[in-house]
């Protein structure tokens, strides 16, 4: 079997009395889209922050490309080829779209002119070439999410971490975004996404991990996950799966 690009091994994190993550493990295979789902408070954001370097884990290893990167600051991870987006988009509001993307594009390109030119290419790749010279402050939520994605892509990553990149979008905006993310995967970039929008998870992800109370309670392809009684219970409460089965068979 191929060695996965990212392996999270027995990561624990405690905030005071709350065990946010309890020996959580998962892995993301190279060139695939892996989704991390779970109800509110499951520890998704904590896990994401630890992988992205903004939080150190209490225990455990984050192995990327065969190296333990746990605790490395975000800028070093970016130089290793790990890009991320923020759940709440963080544009450089004083700059244009092109200048925003150019900050990312500068990582592999020291020259200003090269970075600005590359920024134009990336903007077209995420479908917003038309907005290139607009001030970032004038973008709506959908525009900001695409900018977030474009900026991350501009650093030429191998691993892209997407933090609810579809949250806050309307259904037609989501339909517009799904092929963009798929095209990024098709270019060979490995994607790990945290997502609440199930429609997107089922149409995008090849492998899903379900997190609940800091542990992985299920994993597998999206359709198998949706039918897993543990997952249904995590979302709807204990006994819900049994009741659903019962009503399901009664109707049948």
């Amino acid at each position, binding site marked *: 079997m191929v060695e996965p690009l990212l392996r999270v091994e027995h990561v624990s994190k405690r905030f005071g009395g709350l065990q946010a993550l309890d020996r959580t493990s998962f892995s993301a295979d190279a060139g695939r889209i892996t989704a991390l789902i779970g109800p509110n408070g499951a520890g998704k954001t904590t896990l994401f922050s630890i992988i992205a370097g903004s939080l150190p884990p209490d225990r455990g290893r984050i192995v990327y490309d065969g190296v333990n990167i746990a605790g490395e600051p975000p800028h070093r991870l*970016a130089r290793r080829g790990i890009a*991320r987006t923020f759940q709440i988009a963080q544009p450089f*509001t*004083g700059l244009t779209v092109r200048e925003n993307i150019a900050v990312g594009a500068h990582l592999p390109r020291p020259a200003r002119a090269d970075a600005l030119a590359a920024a134009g290419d990336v903007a077209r790749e995420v479908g917003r070439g038309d907005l290139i010279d607009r001030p970032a402050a*004038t973008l709506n939520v959908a525009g900001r999410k695409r900018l977030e994605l474009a900026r*991350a892509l501009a650093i030429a990553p191998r691993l892209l971490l997407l933090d609810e990149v579809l949250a806050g979008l309307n259904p037609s905006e989501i339909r517009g975004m799904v092929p963009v993310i798929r095209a990024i995967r098709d270019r060979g970039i490995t994607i790990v996404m945290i997502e609440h929008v199930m429609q997107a998870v089922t149409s995008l992800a090849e492998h899903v991990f379900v997190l609940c109370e800091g542990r992985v309670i299920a994993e597998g392809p999206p359709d198998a996950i949706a039918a897993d009684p543990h997952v249904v219970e995590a979302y709807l409460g204990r006994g819900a799966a049994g009741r659903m089965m019962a009503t399901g068979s009664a109707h049948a």
Partner: protein
Amino acid sequence: MKGLVPIVGAVALLGTVPLITSSNVVLNFLVLVFLIALVGQGWNLLGGYGGQYSFGHAAFFGTGAYVTAVLQVRYGVNAWLGFGIGIVAGGVVGAAIGALSFRAGLKGSYFALVTLAFAEVLRIIASVAPITGAGVGTLITLDLRPEALQFQSRAPFYWIILGLVGVSLILIRAIEDSRFGAYLIAVRENEDAAEALGVDTTAVKLGAMTISAAITAAGGCFYAQYFLFIDASIAYGPWISVEALLAPIIGGTGTVFGPLLGALVVKTLGELGKFATGDAPGLDLVIYGCVLIAVVAVAPRGIAGMLSDLRRHFLSPKTAMPPSLRRDHG
């Protein structure tokens, strides 16, 4: 490099002034304007481009002034060499204060307060340490020879400070056009996002503070050589920290010409104020305060920002957007 023409043009134009007039009043006035423009340009790099608001640029100004003066007076070092060492020393002090503050993660008003504290500590040390002449101050011996960086007329001083301003303008323009400059602006706009894009924000801020301090220190070196006297409250006093941030804020932070425009406006108003109030002590400061309030209210992006808004407004009224959404990308 784009944007070089206006800089060379402006400096060349200003360079002709001593050929037109030998009036000491005019030349002295412009020398002070350029001095503040230079000191303010240092602040502008760190505060205007990097978003790190220092309230203690006196620490660098004073270090430049004292190093230049003390090396000459006590160690017989050549004035030109002392000038250069003063600039380097200012940069070193900037790097040291920056390393301490940025590694401790100080931001916003905490950073401003700590820089103010460092400047005050240096002022107090300079007012008691024997090497600085303590309370008496340091007097540079009169020696009107170019080798000693002293001149009979004001014109050479004028060209030297104008040259320094010219160099600082070109340096800032070059930084604007570089990866370092893009990273510095990204730090100002959003540090977390910059960090995630591979920007070592601590290193970028430290670099900016070092260059910023060196530019401001050059102003201090010039001050010592021009007035031939400094004491602790001149060199490390809060007045210069205020001048350093007032000029770029009024002229337009994060713009190449902001500090020069701001220094020109502030000094002109100061002189007019002194003239109008008949030298009533402190009244010119009241005028400073009023101008600052007016600028913040009418043109939050300073004079340079207002000019570019006006230009855009008249060139393309259709694409005009609310000023709050715009920035100067020149």
